[in-house]
């Protein structure tokens, strides 16, 4: 299904639009802008932006409220670059068992891009934070048609913003202005954390003196307050917290499921791995259901928040089905489990992925 500025993506929903990236695009670290997934929460979504009138409003508990133009963003703050993976909280929800309601994503609600923009902490500092400030809220141009529908507004702790120089307001994605459906003219980039915080078509930043708990922060986008973020399948967590850092994931992009490969002929297996910002330092590949694993070659290191390419040569030893598996490790030793974890919203999936191919 083709959407403006987008290639042929998998359509989940039209209104508001949700478009998934086919797995074949993840054979490289950078996801092209036209293949980058789309997920909106409320309708209508913005379809027109005029930079002559667009402003980023910064207000609330500040000394000097700001109305920043695109020119201001580009000239009043140092341009900062970060390559970072952007993954929907519900990526792979369609794989949950027992099944859960919600966007039935396959594995393509993710992408990785080089983002350039202004540091959020520089913007907040220019406005001057007042005593008692606790959180910052972020709102975009997507505004629900009906006043009863909760507007999509997200929040981060002020300390998170001030401590992390990589939280930016990005106006450039892979060297280009952002596609409209990925947040033109600017979106928040929160490296290492799930995409729900990366507010698109950003227009309003407010410093507040409390913890923001409107719908999309509570009860929306919460995970069980347990070390794994999981509960016994089919049960309800006693306490929840806002979703945050992404666990380790890795994928086989090629060959895809059901691909026919030749016995005795070397086949190239490729994919990507990423985590929530510690950086991937090892990827392993198995062809015997996880009995043995071998280390594979990693691609160029584009930074600790980025997808890391990996590749391996594999020669199918015999005819029949072969199950290929991949798992990754980050620099603090976190990895992926053999059995999937479960939570009622279908978040945080990071089980070892498997692809079955057919050797002939």
């Amino acid at each position, binding site marked *: 299904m083709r959407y403006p500025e987008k290639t042929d993506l998998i359509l989940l*929903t039209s209104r508001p639009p949700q478009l998934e990236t086919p797995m074949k695009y993840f054979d490289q670290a950078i996801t092209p802008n036209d293949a980058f997934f789309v997920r909106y929460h409320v309708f209508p979504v913005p379809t027109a932006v005029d930079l002559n009138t667009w402003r980023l409003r910064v207000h609330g508990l500040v000394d000097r409220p700001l109305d920043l133009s695109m020119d201001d963003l580009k000239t009043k703050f140092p341009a900062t670059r970060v390559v970072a993976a952007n993954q929907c909280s519900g990526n792979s929800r369609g794989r949950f068992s027992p099944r859960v309601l919600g966007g039935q994503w396959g594995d393509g609600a993710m992408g990785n891009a080089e983002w350039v923009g202004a540091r959020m902490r520089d913007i907040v500092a220019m406005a001057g934070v007042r005593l008692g400030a606790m959180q910052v809220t972020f709102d975009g141009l997507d505004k629900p048609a009906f006043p009863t529908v909760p507007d999509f507004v997200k929040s981060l702790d002020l300390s998170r913003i001030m401590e992390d120089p990589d939280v930016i307001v990005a106006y450039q994605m892979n060297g280009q202005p952002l596609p409209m459906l990925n947040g033109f003219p600017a979106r928040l980039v929160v490296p290492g954390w799930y995409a729900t915080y990366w507010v698109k078509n950003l227009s309003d930043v407010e410093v507040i003196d409390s913890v923001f708990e409107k719908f999309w922060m509570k009860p929306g986008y919460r995970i069980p307050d347990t070390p794994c973020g999981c509960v016994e399948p089919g049960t309800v967590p006693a306490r929840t917290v806002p979703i945050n850092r992404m666990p380790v994931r890795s994928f086989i992009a090629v060959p895809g499921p059901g691909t026919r490969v030749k016995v005795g002929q070397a086949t190239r297996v490729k994919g990507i791995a990423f985590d929530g910002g510690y950086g991937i330092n090892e990827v392993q590949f198995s062809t015997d259901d996880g009995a043995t694993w071998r280390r594979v070659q990693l691609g160029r290191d584009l930074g600790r928040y980025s997808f890391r390419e990996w590749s391996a040569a594999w020669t199918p030893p015999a005819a029949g089905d072969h199950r290929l598996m991949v798992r990754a490790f980050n620099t603090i030793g976190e990895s992926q489990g053999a059995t999937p974890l479960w939570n009622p919203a279908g978040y945080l999936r990071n089980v070892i992925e498997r692809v079955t191919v057919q050797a002939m």
Partner: protein
Amino acid sequence: MRIVLVCLLSGLAVASTAIGQEKQIVLPADHDYATLKPGLHSELAQTQCQFCHSTDYIVMQPGGDAKQWDAVVAKMVKVFGAPLSEADAKAITEYLATTYGPSK
């Protein structure tokens, strides 16, 4: 002044226009696959649900039992403020639980 027409297909204009400092896109209409399956109260569900969102939101779900769909409809009314009468909400829940029942 610069005009970029990204693509035109099957008579449906899916375009992106950038004129200097402006950018504009045209979104496609709801896809045919969003059309709800026939059944008792299907027209009511189609009309009421698509008022706020495309009904592929329903079609893509794995299916749910009466309790799950009741929770979904209740969320639409209580959280999102869907202007549904109690009778219509009940009829839509029945339709969904019957037509989009639990996955196997």
